[in-house]
């Protein structure tokens, strides 16, 4: 789409110059508007975090001065506390990623390429934990696995066994994170394994390699990019994960960079500048990790995935069919069954104090639905539900529209500024949620537009944070629609806008809908981004759960969590029908 609207000849002027200037002006308007919008949404928060890291004061309404630039804040970054937090973050990230890859890779291999028992069911087992937001899983594990009051140990003691489960330490944190990030590894590796062109393997077979060799020399090397991709994705996600570190690590006194930032912000007086400096350290870690991945993948190209529905060969596991199934079921138990059961137990138990688990089933009125009634009746929960739905729907709608506009300009036009548009759109991927939240807080505090403290600021925050997912979703579906289809409409008499409206948009219906649903679901789950932005009137469901847990109202937190999971389950079934992908 170079220049579509007609230009009329201009008389009595130096026409060439004028025509060219007008063309340039017209070409530049749309990308400039979009870029300004993205800059406000994404670049401004990032810039404010960077500035705050060098300032002696955090941005406040009417007080935003850059006079006192200093490096003092970085002194804190090198203090013992933050070095410890950084090391913890790395240890937790590396440990959790390794474990998650192991679990996810195992499940993917077994379900994609072997004849394990209950293959279809194990596939679901690999995906199901995605429905549990990581902080709900963490919350469940904290009631399940703490040393004294944990349900696991109480049950063991009921049985006369010593309680040995203790989740509140760095190993526990690693395990819980791994449980809930394993599905990412599962999805990516399973995709690569099942879409691989079987001709490649058969060729190796024909050329003399026995099956084990084919696996080692062809199959596994070809899955390497997916494996590395999953590794980096999970490493980044676990390093920047705030809620799990806060819930599990908080009780154990294991501090990570995100929780350290949170603590600095919540101390009195708030130490925002130091938090900003720590945030920059966190971003640096994430950037190093992603840069490493690029270097590893840049050297080779792997065009193996054909995308056709093919049937790769399956390995006969023989005697290992049952052990493999049991291992899968073990993961199912730890990731989904036990956590959901323990949440249900806590929510339904008649008192917050639990002396015995097995004994409760013998008592007549040990269980009551009071906590659920409490949640459904509570004005806070009702309000939060309305808030969550309103914010998520609005954010998903606006996010999809913006993503469409940006992706269209980037993919379908030759307008100037396409590259920066794409870069800025993808930038939030490299910015940990807690850092982005911090930047968004400061941005909208100093904006002359009074949105701070309203639901609007939540919508803005979500649109900014989920721009990469939205952009990628829409861009990939635009890529699947041949541009000739739209050009053809223009050739046959439609204006460019009309061609987009009658041809391109209808053809993208499925892609746009699934992007909308993906964004809707991400917004419903998000806790970290709005953490600094909410006020008592604008709490979301995720924040209510986190708050209740923080204040020790466990039963209500558990009941809300379960209801919340049901909503997310419904949403994801809906989005699966439209073919949405849940990869972050």
């Amino acid at each position, binding site marked *: 789409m170079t220049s579509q609207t007609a230009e009329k000849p201009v008389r009595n002027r130096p026409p060439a110059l004028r025509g060219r200037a007008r063309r340039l002006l017209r070409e530049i308007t749309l990308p400039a508007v979009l870029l300004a919008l993205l800059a406000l949404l994404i670049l401004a928060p990032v810039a404010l975090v960077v500035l705050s890291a060098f300032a002696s004061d955090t941005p406040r309404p009417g007080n935003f001065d850059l006079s006192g630039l200093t490096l003092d804040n970085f002194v804190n970054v090198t203090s013992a506390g933050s070095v410890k937090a950084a090391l913890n973050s790395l240890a937790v990230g590396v440990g959790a990623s390794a474990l998650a890859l192991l679990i996810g890779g195992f499940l993917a291999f077994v379900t994609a390429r072997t004849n394990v028992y209950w293959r279809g069911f194990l596939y679901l087992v690999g995906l199901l934990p995605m429905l549990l937001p990581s902080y709900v899983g963490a919350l469940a594990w904290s009631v399940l696995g703490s040393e004294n009051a944990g349900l696991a140990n109480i049950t063991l003691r009921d049985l006369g066994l010593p309680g040995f489960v203790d989740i509140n330490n760095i190993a526990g944190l690693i395990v819980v994170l791994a449980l809930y990030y394993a599905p990412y590894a599962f999805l990516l590796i399973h995709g690569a394994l099942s879409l691989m062109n079987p001709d490649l393997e058969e060729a190796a077979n024909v050329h003399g390699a026995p099956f084990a060799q084919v696996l080692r020399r062809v199959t596994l090397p070809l899955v390497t990019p997916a494996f590395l991709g999953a590794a980096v994705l999970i490493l980044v996600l676990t390093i920047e994960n705030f809620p799990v570190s806060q819930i599990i690590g908080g009780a154990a006194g294991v501090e990570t960079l995100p929780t350290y930032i949170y603590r600095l912000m919540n101390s009195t007086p708030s130490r925002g500048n130091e938090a900003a400096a720590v945030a920059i350290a966190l971003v640096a870690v994430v950037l190093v990790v992603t840069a490493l991945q690029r270097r590893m993948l840049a050297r080779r190209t792997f065009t193996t995935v054909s995308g056709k529905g093919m049937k790769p060969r399956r390995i006969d596991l023989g005697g290992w069919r049952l052990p493999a199934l049991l291992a899968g079921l073990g993961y199912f138990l730890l990731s989904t069954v036990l956590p959901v059961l323990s949440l249900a137990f806590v929510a339904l138990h008649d008192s917050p104090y639990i002396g015995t688990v097995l004994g409760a089933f013998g008592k007549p009125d040990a269980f009551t639905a009071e906590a659920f009634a409490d949640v459904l009746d509570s004005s806070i929960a009702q309000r939060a539900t309305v808030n969550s739905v309103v914010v998520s729907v609005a954010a998903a709608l606006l996010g999809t529209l913006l993503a469409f506009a940006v992706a269209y300009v980037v993919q379908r036009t030759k307008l100037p500024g396409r590259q920066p548009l794409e870069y800025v759109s993808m930038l939030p991927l490299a910015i940990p949620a807690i850092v982005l939240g911090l930047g968004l807080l400061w941005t909208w505090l100093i904006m002359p537009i009074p949105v701070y403290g309203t639901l609007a600021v939540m919508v803005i925050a979500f649109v900014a944070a989920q721009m990469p997912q939205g952009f990628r979703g829409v861009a990939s579906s635009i890529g699947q629609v041949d541009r000739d*289809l739209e050009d*053809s409409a223009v050739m046959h008499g439609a204006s460019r806008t009309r061609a987009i409206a009658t041809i391109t948009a209808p053809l993208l219906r499925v892609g746009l809908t699934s992007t909308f649903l993906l964004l809707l679901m991400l917004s419903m789950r998000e806790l970290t981004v709005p953490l600094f932005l909410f006020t008592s009137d604008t709490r979301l469901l995720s924040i209510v759960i986190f708050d209740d847990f923080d204040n020790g109202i466990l039963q209500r937190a558990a009941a809300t969590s379960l209801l919340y999971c049901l909503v997310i389950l419904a949403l994801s079934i809906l989005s699966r029908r439209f073919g949405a992908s849940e990869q972050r």
Partner: protein
Amino acid sequence: MKVDVHGLTLKYGDAVAVSDLDLAVNEGESLVLLGQSGCGKTSTMRCIAGLETPASAVITIGDQTVFDSGRGINRAPNKRNVGMVFQSYAIWPHMTVFENVAFPLKMKGRKKAEINEAVHETLELVGLDHLAERGASLLSGGQMQRVALARSLAMQPSVLLLDEPLSNLDARLRHRLRMELRELQLRLKLTSLYVTHDQDEALALADRIALMQAGRIVQIGEPHEIYANPKSASIAEFLGVDNVIPVTPEDTTCVQLTATGQKLSVEPYEAAETLRLCVRAEDVLLAAGGTGDVNALPGTIVSFAFQGSTVAYRVRVGDGLELDAVQMKSAGPLFGMNDAVTVSLPARAMRVLPAEVAA
């Protein structure tokens, strides 16, 4: 209507796709732009359509100037009344056949009854009237191609552009549709510009062929003219001449094979910096013994392939020089591997041409 392109230059960044190209399609004429992929033929067509914006050009369709870089005129593609059949057909899958063909008429604001009649008339023309209500995603390749054609015809375009419209079809269907297309075009007296890389298609469909190389037109003329008198060796090669051999000039009727130093007498040729001898395989004669011909070279058979009515040979006539020859089976004895033969090159079958057309 007549189409005039003057001084067309198109750049993608720093790369020049089309450079200072002039082209005229006469009213009712079928002009074929022929060239290898990447020569700029599709780009030229897209500039006429208005889908690309040239760095400079004056383009007129009929008596309307649709693009003039000097005067800052750039008419939108939808206001040029140009029909276009895309290589991918670009049939809208979410519409029926009828809706696809009705689209341009709807855009022109025609009345319903009028549209109805025109669409059915056009569909009849391409033999698809019975499929009007079929969803477009259910069509075969050949049917899609016809719908694309009908859609463009329905708008009664000033000029019809066709971008390799047959390249996605299998050989037999391609052949049949080529004939149908030519028939339609002659019957409707369409002004059309057809882009292809297939010389057979070009020869069959064109009133005139414009040959493109590296962003410019190197030769333009009627099909038989171009076939008989290519202006350069690379055009000859593109048109299927099998033997293109480097030569150095000796005098006006004699050249020397650069590889072997042998001399051949040829018809008078124009001097140029680099010369090539061009001769079709069927004009290379083979014999078992000496023939006494002027241009006789001793050679050895290095490979042969039976082709039904003919046999194709490859003959080595010296260090680093091999020639292709095709003999009718009835023309003489069959040769085998390593047989010694005499190769005769009749002077009137050979052409000495410059390697490339001078810029």
